[in-house]
C-alpha cells in the first residue's frame, strides 16, 4: 500500500527529477535552453566530486560531448560559440582532478573536438578548449602525445608561442605529461622548446609554474639538456633561482624542484654552498604549507638529499630532523604527507651517524614504528625504508636499540604484507636489524621472523628471494649455535643447495655468504655442509666452477676457506672440491681465481690455500704435494709482488708455510 513520502525521500526524488530534467534540457534543440542547461550543469559539478559522479552515472558526459560536436558543426553564430565555451567548460570540470571524469570524456570521443577548438578564431572558444584539455592532461589517463612526429612538434610549438596564457599552459602540460624518454627530451631541446620555456619564466604566474615544471621534465637525467639550458641563456639559471623567492609558495616549490633536477642531472652546476643551504631552508619552510605544496616539498627535499652527504650535513645543521619530527607528531597526517616525511627522514639518516643519533635521541623511532601498521601501503613502505636507514648505525646495533619486540613484531608482520613493495622494504629493515651484535638475535626467531624469512627465500619473485636470503645471511653473522641450528633446520640442506644454484647470480651470492657465516665460529658448525651426503658442498663446488661474477667466487671461496680451517676431514673435503676439475682435465677454479683481476677474489683464494697448508695439521705436507702437482704452488709463487698488499702478505704466509712443511722446491 503506498504511504506518504518522508521529507528527505521527497527532497531526494525531486533532486533526481530536476537532474533528469537538466539532462533533457542539455539535449534540447533550442540553443538557449541548451546553453542555460550546460551552464547550470557546469556550476553544479565544479569542485563537487559527488555531483560529478552523480551526473556521470546519468550519462551527462556523452550528452555534453554531443552538444559540443553539434555546436562545432554549425559554429558560425555567436550562440554556437557560447555553446562551445559552455560545453567545453563542463567537460573540463568533469575531468578536473577526477579520473573517472577524464575516462568518460575520453570515451565520449570529445578529445578530438576539444583539440579542434584550439583552431577557432574566437579567443573565448580557444581558451575554453585549452582550459579543458589542460584538465585532461593533468591526469595520468590522458593520451600520450607523440613529439617525434613533425606535425605534432609544430603544433606543440604553436601552442607554446601562443599569446593566450591558457594555451601556452596547455603546451607545458602536454610536455609534463608526455615527455618520458631521452629521445623525446632531445627532440624537444632540438626544436627550441627550452628557449621558449625560458622566456615563459618571465610570464604570468601560471606560465611561470608551467614552464618550471616542463623544464624539469625535459632536463631530468639528461646532462645534455641541462647544459643546453644553462648555456643557452645567461639569465636561464638565475631566473629559476630568482623564482625560488617568488611570493607564491607553489612557484617557490617548482623552482626548487627545477634546481634540484638540474643539480642531480649535472652535479657541476649549483655547487655553491649558498644555493645548497638556501634550498635546504626553502624546502624546510615549504613543508609547513598545509596543502599540496607542503606534501610535495618533502619529496623534493628527499631528492635534494639523496646520496649527497654534504647536503645531508647541511640539512642536519638546519635542524631538519627536529622539524620533520615535529611534522610527524601532528595528528591525522594525510597519507602522502606522512609518506613524504618518512622518506625525507630516511634520506637524512642514510649516511650520517650524527643524523641517526639525533633521530634516536628525539625518539622519532617510536613514531616510525607506529607507521609500520598504517593502513596505506606507501606509508608502511616508507616507514620500513626509514627504519632501514637508521639501522645502518653499527653503534646502535651494538647497543641493541632495534632488536626489540615493539619494532620486530610489526616488522615481521609486514613480511607477509599483501604488497610486494612493503615486503621488500620490510626485508631491507630486517636485514639490518638482525645483524644485532648483542645476544638478542633470538628475539627475532621468537617473533616468528625466521619462518617467514625462510618462506620468502623460496618465493617465485627473485627480489624477495634475494632480500630474504640477505636477512638470513645477516642473521647468521656471529649467531650462537642454537640460532644457527634453528636457521639450518628451518632452511634445510636441500633448499640451501638449490639456492646456491639459483638462476639469479645475486641470489647465489647471498646463499654462499649465508653458508660462509654458517660454517664460521664454533668448529662443529662446519659439519652442516656435510649434511645429506654433502649436497651443500657439492653445490658450492659446481657453482664455483661456473661462477658468473667475482662476488660469487669471493663468497664461495670464503666458504671453502672456513671449512679448510677445520679438521683433517674438512680440509680433505675442500681439497677434493679444488682438484675435482684437475682430475677431469679442466682448469681448476682456484687457479682462475688466483689469476683474477679482483684482489678480493685473489685474497679469498689464497686464504683457502693457507688454511689447507696450516703447519700444525697432519696432512699438510701431502696437500702441498697435491697442490704443487696441480700447478697451484707455482701460481702462488708468481704472486709475491701482487699489487694488493693484503694478497702480497697472504702469499708470503702461504710460501712460508710451504717452506716449513718442507716443499723443497720453494
Amino acid at each position, binding site marked *: 500500500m503506498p504511504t506518504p513520502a518522508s521529507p528527505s525521500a521527497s527532497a531526494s526524488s525531486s533532486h533526481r527529477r530536476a537532474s533528469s530534467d537538466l539532462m533533457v534540457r542539455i539535449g534540447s534543440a533550442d540553443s538557449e535552453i541548451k546553453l542555460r542547461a550546460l551552464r547550470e550543469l557546469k556550476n553544479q559539478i565544479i569542485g563537487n566530486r559527488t555531483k560529478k559522479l552523480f551526473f556521470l552515472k546519468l550519462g551527462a558526459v556523452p550528452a555534453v560531448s554531443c552538444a559540443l560536436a553539434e555546436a562545432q558543426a554549425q559554429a558560425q553564430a555567436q550562440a554556437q560559440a557560447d555553446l562551445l565555451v559552455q560545453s567545453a567548460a563542463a567537460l573540463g570540470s568533469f575531468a578536473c582532478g577526477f579520473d573517472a571524469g577524464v575516462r568518460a570524456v575520453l570515451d565520449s570521443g570529445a578529445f578530438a573536438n576539444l583539440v579542434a577548438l584550439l583552431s577557432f578564431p574566437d579567443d573565448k572558444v580557444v581558451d575554453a578548449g585549452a582550459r579543458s584539455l589542460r584538465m585532461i592532461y593533468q591526469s595520468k589517463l590522458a593520451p600520450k602525445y607523440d613529439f617525434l612526429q613533425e606535425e605534432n612538434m609544430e603544433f606543440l610549438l604553436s601552442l607554446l608561442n601562443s599569446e593566450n596564457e591558457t594555451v601556452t599552459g596547455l603546451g607545458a602540460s602536454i610536455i609534463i605529461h608526455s615527455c618520458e624518454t631521452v629521445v623525446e627530451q632531445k627532440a624537444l631541446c632540438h626544436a627550441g622548446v627550452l628557449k621558449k620555456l625560458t622566456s615563459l619564466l618571465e610570464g604570468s604566474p601560471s606560465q611561470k609554474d608551467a614552464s618550471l615544471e616542463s623544464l624539469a621534465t625535459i632536463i631530468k637525467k639528461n646532462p645534455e639538456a641541462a647544459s643546453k639550458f644553462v648555456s643557452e641563456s645567461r639569465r636561464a639559471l638565475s631566473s629559476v633561482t630568482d623564482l625560488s623567492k617568488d611570493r607564491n609558495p607553489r612557484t617557490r616549490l617548482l623552482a626548487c624542484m627545477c634546481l634540484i633536477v638540474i643539480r642531480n642531472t649535472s652535479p657541476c652546476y649549483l655547487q655553491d654552498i649558498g644555493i645548497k643551504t638556501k634550498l635546504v631552508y626553502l624546502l624546510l619552510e615549504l613543508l609547513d604549507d598545509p596543502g599540496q605544496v607542503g606534501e610535495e616539498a618533502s619529496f623534493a627535499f628527499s631528492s635534494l638529499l639523496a646520496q649527497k652527504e654534504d647536503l645531508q650535513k647541511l640539512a642536519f645543521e638546519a635542524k631538519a630532523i627536529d622539524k620533520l619530527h615535529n611534522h610527524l607528531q601532528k595528528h591525522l597526517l594525510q597519507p602522502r604527507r606522512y609518506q613524504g616525511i618518512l622518506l625525507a627522514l630516511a634520506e637524512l639518516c642514510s649516511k650520517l*651517524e650524527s643524523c641517526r643519533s639525533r633521530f634516536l635521541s628525539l625518539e622519532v623511532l617510536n613514531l616510525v614504528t607506529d607507521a609500520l601498521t598504517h593502513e596505506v601501503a606507501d606509508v608502511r613502505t616508507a616507514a620500513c625504508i626509514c627504519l632501514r636507514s637508521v639501522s645502518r648505525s653499527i653503534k646502535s646495533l651494538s647497543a641493541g636499540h632495534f632488536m626489540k619486540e615493539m619494532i620486530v613484531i610489526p616488522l615481521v608482520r609486514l613480511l607477509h604484507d599483501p604488497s610486494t613493495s612493503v615486503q621488500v622494504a620490510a626485508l631491507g629493515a630486517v636485514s639490518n636489524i638482525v645483524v644485532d651484535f648483542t645476544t638478542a638475535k633470538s628475539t627475532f626467531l621468537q617473533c616468528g621472523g625466521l619462518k617467514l624469512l625462510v618462506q620468502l627465500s623460496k618465493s617465485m619473485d627473485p627480489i624477495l628471494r634475494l632480500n630474504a636470503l640477505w636477512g638470513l645471511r645477516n642473521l647468521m653473522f656471529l649467531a650462537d649455535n642454537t640460532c644457527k641450528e634453528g636457521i639450518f633446520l628451518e632452511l634445510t640442506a636441500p633448499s640451501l643447495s638449490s639456492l646456491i644454484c639459483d638462476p639469479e647470480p645475486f641470489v647465489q651470492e647471498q646463499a654462499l655468504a649465508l653458508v660462509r657465516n654458517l660454517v664460521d665460529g664454533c668448529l662443529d658448525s662446519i659439519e652442516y655442509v656435510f649434511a645429506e651426503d654433502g649436497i651443500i658442498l657439492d653445490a658450492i663446488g659446481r657453482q664455483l666452477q661456473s661462477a658468473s661474477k667475482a662476488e660469487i667466487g669471493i663468497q664461495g671461496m670464503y666458504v671453502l676457506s672456513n671449512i679448510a680451517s677445520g679438521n683433517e676431514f674438512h680440509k680433505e673435503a675442500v681439497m677434493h672440491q679444488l682438484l675435482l676439475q684437475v682430475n677431469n682435465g679442466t682448469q681448476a677454479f682456484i687457479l682462475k681465481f688466483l689469476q683474477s683481476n679482483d684482489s678480493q677474489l685473489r685474497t679469498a683464494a689464497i686464504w683457502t690455500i693457507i688454511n689447507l697448508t696450516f703447519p700444525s695439521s697432519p696432512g699438510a705436507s701431502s696437500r702441498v704435494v697435491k697442490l704443487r702437482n696441480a700447478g697451484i704452488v707455482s701460481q702462488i709463487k708468481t704472486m709475491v709482488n701482487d699489487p694488493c698488499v693484503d694478497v702480497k702478505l697472504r702469499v708470503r704466509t702461504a710460501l712460508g708455510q710451504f717452506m716449513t712443511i718442507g716443499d723443497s722446491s720453494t
Partner: protein
Amino acid sequence: MPVRVVESSAPSQVSGANSGKTSPPACTLLSVGQAFSGTQNVSSLQKDEAWRVNVRIQGCDLEHGYLCGTMEALNVPMADTPVVTFWEGEIVDTINYTFFTGKWEATPEDDKKHWDKFPSFSPFKSQVEFDGGKNLDLSNYPYIFMRWKEQYFVNVGTDCGLTIAGFYYVCFSCSDGSISGFYYDPNSSPFQKLELKSTNDGRSGFSFSSYELQ
C-alpha cells in the same frame, strides 16, 4: 677497555660520518667479525697488573677511515662480570685522519710520544715532525695506525666505578693480525700497553664471516 675512575670526565664524541656500509677491508685480518685476544697492562706504582682483553671488529668503513667494535675486559677486579665497551676507531689514512689527534686532551706532543713507541712508526717520524705527515701515503704500508675511543659500556652501567675517558693509540700488523696499543688518559697511568693477537676459535686456520647492511 675501561680503567678505574680517577677523575670523572665525559667521553668525547666521534664526529666521523659513516654510511653504515661495510667496505672491503684493507686487510682481511681486520675485517668485520674478526676477534683478537690478549692483555692490557694496567700496572701502577703500587702493583703490577694486567687484565685479559678480547676485541671483536663489528664495523669497517674505509672510505670514512672508520672502524668499530667491542672490547671485553675479563678479570676486572671491581666487576662481577666481564666488562664490555663499544669503541669507535679513526684510521690514520691522512685523508680522514692524520697522526695528530686534535681532541681528547691529546696534544701533538702526546701524539708523537705515543706513536714513537711503535717501531713501525719510525719511517714516518721525521715527516710527522715536519708537517704532521699529512702527505704520507700509507695505503700500501703493512701496518695500520688507528685511534680507538670507547664510547659506551655495553653490559654495565656508567656507575660501575670504571672510566672510558681515555683512548688508545693502536698499531695493527697486516702480516699476522697482531695489535699493539697504548692507552692515553691524562688521569690514568701512562703508556698502559695493550697487546692482542688474532684468535681462531680452536681452528687449524683462519675463518671469516661477513654481513652487509642495506
